Every structure is written in C-alpha cells, then in structure tokens.
C-alpha cells in the first residue's frame, strides 16, 4: 500500500466512523436514576442469600445450635427492618 492509498483508506475510515458516531439516533437508552427503593430491593436479595447460606451451613454441621439461633435472629431482624422500610416506601 502506497502512502497515498494509505491516506485515502484512512480518510474513508474517518468518514465512516464520524457518520457512525454522530448519526441522529432517537432510540438511545435513557439514564435512569437509581432510587433508594432499588437499593433496598437489591439488599433484600443479598440478605435472603445470607440467610440461605446460614441455614445451609447449619445443616452441614458448621454451627452449634445456639450459635445458629443467635445468628439467625440477627439476620432475620435485619431483614425484617429492611422489609418494613420497603413496605413503607411502596405504600
């Protein structure tokens, strides 16, 4: 490829890329603001997962009974608080 051919190929590429970049497009994705409710719903999933893990590890024999009960009470309390806030926001 000669220098002139290289420059022409480069110009063509530039033209194609500029057209692609600035082509009027109305179907672009809008930037939705994430709310606290979205955050709480994500957190709820995580707390459920933590509870599932705790139950599984207990059944696998990793926790003595009293440790398990104490841990579960703490997690359930946290989950209940979160559910209450979700309910209040959704009301």
């Amino acid at each position, binding site marked *: *490829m000669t*220098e002139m051919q*290289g*420059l022409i*190929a*480069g*110009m063509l*590429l*530039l033209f194609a*890329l*500029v057209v*692609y*970049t*600035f*082509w009027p*497009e109305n179907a*672009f*994705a*809008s*930037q*939705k*603001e*994430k*709310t*606290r409710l*979205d*955050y*709480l719903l*994500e*957190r709820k999933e*995580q707390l*459920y*997962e*933590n*509870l*599932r893990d*705790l*139950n*599984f590890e207990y*059944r*696998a*024999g*990793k*926790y*003595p009974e*009293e*440790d398990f009960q104490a*841990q579960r009470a*703490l997690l*359930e309390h*946290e*989950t*209940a*608080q*979160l*559910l*209450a*806030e*979700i*309910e209040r926001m959704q009301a």
Partner: protein
Amino acid sequence: MAAFGSFCLLIGLALAAYNLLAGALALRLLATGQPARISPERLADTARRAGIAGFIAVTGAAFALVWSVFTNDFSITYIVEHSNRALPIAYKFAALWSGQEGSLLLWAWLLGTYGFVLRLRHKTDVKLYAYAGTILAGIQVFFLLLLNFAAPPFSLLKGAIPDDGNGLNPLLQYPEMVIHPPMLYLGYVGFSVPFAFALGALMMRYPGEKWIRITRTWTMVTWLFLTCGIFLGMHWAYAVLGWGGYWGWDPVENASFMPWLTGTAFLHSVMMQERKGMMKSWNVWLIFSTFLLTLLGTLLTRAGLVSSVHAFAQSSIGTWFIVFMAIVIAVCIFAYVYQRGHLKTEHQLESLVSRESSFLFNNLVLLTACFVILWGTLFPILSEYVEGSKVTVGAPFYNRVAVPIGLFLLFLTGVGPLLPWRSTSLRAIKRNFVLPVIALWAMVIVCLVAGANPWKGGMFDSGRFYALVAFALSAAVTTAIVAEFLRGATVIARQTGRNLFAALWLLTRRNTRRYGGYLVHIGVVIVVVGLAGSAFNRNLESELGMHGSMSIGPYTLVNNSFTQDTNDNYNSEYAVLDVYKGGKNVFQMTPEKRFYLASGQPQTMVAIHSTPEWDLYVVYEGTNPDTGQPIIKAFLNPLVGWIWFGLAVIVLGTFVALVPSLTPATAALRVPAARGVQAEPVLKGGD
C-alpha cells in the same frame, strides 16, 4: 501501511478525546440539571459511540502493524528493529509486543477491546456505564497520546531501506512468549475496567453494591489472565534463562506480581462489601492501587527504570507515565475526599474470630507482601536518587520476608472457609478444626519419616524448615476444603436422595462462586507444594567427553554425541545425552545453544524431562575452549511439575466460579412479617 496506521492512531486519539470530553460534559449536565442546547443523554450516546468507533480505529492501527511485520516492510523503523525475513510466523505476531511502541499499541488495542464490550453492554446500567466508559476514554487518551507523539510505531526509517531486519530478541523466540505478554497485558489492561467502575460509582454516589456484581466477571477474568501471564512468564524463565529456577524476584516479575496481590485482596474483601456493606473505602482504594500498580508495571517494563532480563525496551516515556500516574492519583484522592461520606460502612467487625476477620487478615497480609515487594523493587531507584548509587535488593531479602508471609496466607486459606460469618464460638472452632489439625500433624510425621526434615548435614536449614511447614499446612488446608465439599454434599445427598458425586456436582452448581473459589484454593495449595520442593534442589556441572557420564539423583547422563545444525534463523550446537535410570536407557535429552543470525545473539535452549516427582533439567553451557568438549549442567528440581498443574486447577476453579449459580429450588426461609417492625431507614448506605 505506515500512513494508514499513523492515520488510524490519530483518528483513535480524536475519538477518545471526544468520548472523554463529551461524556464528561453530558454527565455534568445530567448531574446538575443545567439546560443545554443538546440533550445530555444524546450527547452521552455520541460519546459512547465515539468509544466504539475509537476501538475500530485502534484495531486498524494494530492491523497495519501486523501487516507490516508479515510483509517485511522495512521502511518502518519498528519492523527493522524487531523482525526479519526468516522469523517464523508465530514470532512475527510476537514482534507486535516485543518493542515499546508495539506493546503500547497492544495496551491501547486491548483497552479499546474491553471498552468496546463494555459500551455494547451499556443497557445493564446506562448511567454507571456512561461514567465507566468516560473514565476508560481518559485512560485511552493517555495511551494514544503516547502512541502519536512519544512512541510512534509507524515512524519511517531515515536513509536507505535495508534488505532484512535485525530480528526478534532471541529471548523472545520461545513458544510461551507468543502468549505470555498478551496474557499479562490482558490482565494489566483488564484492571482498568473495575477501576473505571469503582471510580465512576464513587463519583456518582452509586447506591448499593450492584457495581461490584457487574464488575465481578470482569475482575475474575482479568485476575485469571494476570495469573496465567505470571505463570507463563515463570515457565518461560525456567525453560529459557537456564539457571534452573523460575522466579528470581526480578523487578519486572515483581511488577506483575504486585497488582496480582492487590487484585487478589480485592477479590476477597469485595465479598464483605457485597454481603454486609463493609470495607467500602478499603475496596475502593484496593482497586485504585491495583490499577496504579499495573501502570507502574508497564512503566518499569517499558521505560528502562530498572535493570531486568524481562525489560525489552529502554526509553524516555517514563516522564509521561509519571505525569499520568500523578493525574490518576490526584483524581482518585479528589473523588474519595469529595464523596467519602458515601462509603460509610453498614456493619462493624463483630469478632476477631470470624469469616470477616479472616478476610481482613488475608488483605493485610497480601498488602504487606505487596508493600515489601514494592519497596525492594523501587529501592535501587530511591537509593540512586538519595545517595547517587544504585543499591539492588536481591532474592534473599524477598525470600526472608515473602516466604513467611506466603505461609501465613496459606494458613488463612485453610482457616477462612472454616470460620462462620459474624462470630465463632469455641465449640464451633473445635468442631471444624479437628480434622485439619490431625492432617497437619500427620503430614509432619510423614515428612520427617521420608527425610524431608529441616536439617541438612546436621545443620538447621531454614529453606527445608519452611518446606516442611508448607507441606504440613498444605495437608491441613486440603483437608479443610475437602471437608467443606463433603459437608455440603452430605446435606444435599440427604435432601435429594442423590449419591455423593451427584450431590457434589449439584452443590458446586448451586454456589459456583464459593466452590469454584475453593478449587482455586486447592490449586494454590498444589502450587505451594511445587514451590516448597525447591528447598531440595540439587545440581551438578561437568565436562562430558564422548561417552562420558555424570550422575544426579537416580539418573545417569551419558554423552552420546555432540553436533551442530543450521537453518535460516539460527545456527545451533547441541549434545545428545542418553539418560539411564536403574541401568536402563529411559530417554534422550538434547540441550542446545543457538546463535541467531539476524541479531548475532546466543540463546540457551534447556532440555527438561518432567515427572510428578521431579524435573531433570539439563543445560548445554558451551564448550571448554581448552579441550573443545561440551560442558553440561544438570539440575534435579523436585515437584516443579506441581506448579504448572496447580495453575491448571486454578484456571478450572476460576472457570467454575465464573459460571452463574443455580438458584435453589426451594428456599426455606423464615423471615418475620414486616409489619410491627420499626419502619425507619435503619439500613445505612444506598443514599
């Protein structure tokens, strides 16, 4: 092609600059709600598309360079310096990253590729991706500025065009070198993505930890590339440098190891943030540091700041890198100080004996190791600056510090999974630690009986002592992990009536991240066993005349012949050695020395016979000028093969962890009703 390549780089720079400026302006307009003549969202979308277009332009430049190598276009200085006509095809690709300009182009192209994928997936979270894409564009602007003005790969040769080039550095003409640098660069460049997401999430005060889930795959894939890159580099050093080892604490090796350490710390501590909203500031700084260390690694490899067998370029781009790193640090500090209120922890550490604390210790130990290595690596530069003379820190310094740290990490690898979240009672500790402790002491006894004791010739040997500790801890950690698998599988077998193997499979499918992670830990244990084997290395050097012999371990090497060969690329001398074991001829080895014609440089090609027990490693060191007879150096390196096998297990474990988990069919959760519970926003974070 030179004109086309240069033009593509200019287009790439213009598009990356537009992506950065338009993207930043759009995000600013959206954040402040200021009125503008163009919709900020439309502006942000043109910025995103400029990022995609920029990738195509940089791909054009990379293609132009590869094309020039393959067509032997010696009008380009880079091609003259890094290729020649007789270079085999695979190594023509290697020429792309064998020099500074080419490797910077590879950096920019890989960054463009990561950015391309990221921008295509922007609908996952449009705003967060817009921040991340704009930050990536900022990094791309830097690399394209370098490529356009400081290290242009397409600069033309002044004067007459030569018929042939100088050829590729002989050290790079080895199969691993075709994949090791791209792997390492995929790792280095890949950390730009979690960095961009972390910085973007901080700048926009992203509510919650979803950005971590979004970047999890990126981070794990990047970590895997870096891990493979480091191990391939080790194997290359082992097979090519001919000193019998694989890790010499060379500054460039260290430069790749440091981001691996902080990246590994991030992969662990980020779980605390996801599960409990803890260690947010810590994680942000871990990923900032990891990215900065990848830049430092590139700087050390490419700017010639330190002496290294791995540093293949010396130049003045160091100032550019230092300025860019200063800008990155300033941006990170500013974003952190301005938005630190967003990073308040949601929970406190409840107990020093818990899964959380094991992650914390793991992080502290990894960071201590990183700091020690950073200090040792930069010490020659600092000493030259302060005292005017370069003081180099050698392997004994690193080994003295890194080996105990590594063993403590191995200990944590076993302890962590056994500790429950939040806190642990003494009863739970007793219950979970009995088997690993039995395995530990059983291994100590086995090692002592087998002769792997800390005494050598009646003297205490610290290397052998550490090896003994490593073997014992490896047994304990393996037992702990296997017990974890069996405990979980037993529960599933009980619940579903499946046999143990089917239950193990289902257990892993249900929580791929955890059990894939455990497989990675088993891989690490196997690697540690391989590394510990080096305490028992032996070597012997001898001049071998025709039919002369030397013995090492169970092997006897007999010189069958000594000959020469030639081809278009190099001349070579090699010895043909028959290897006997127990009086039987078991195999043949041909250690070689090559003399590359284009570069005029010699290169050792080591002969290696690998078994699970040990490697027989033979180096042809040349001929004795007085007698004309070949000099052979033989090494017997125990357990080296375990290192490469451990890598395979690490790769397998990471792949398992990357597969999405099955959701349990039944989630038997008993959560109290929400009513009647205090309805205040008691959960911190997410604001």
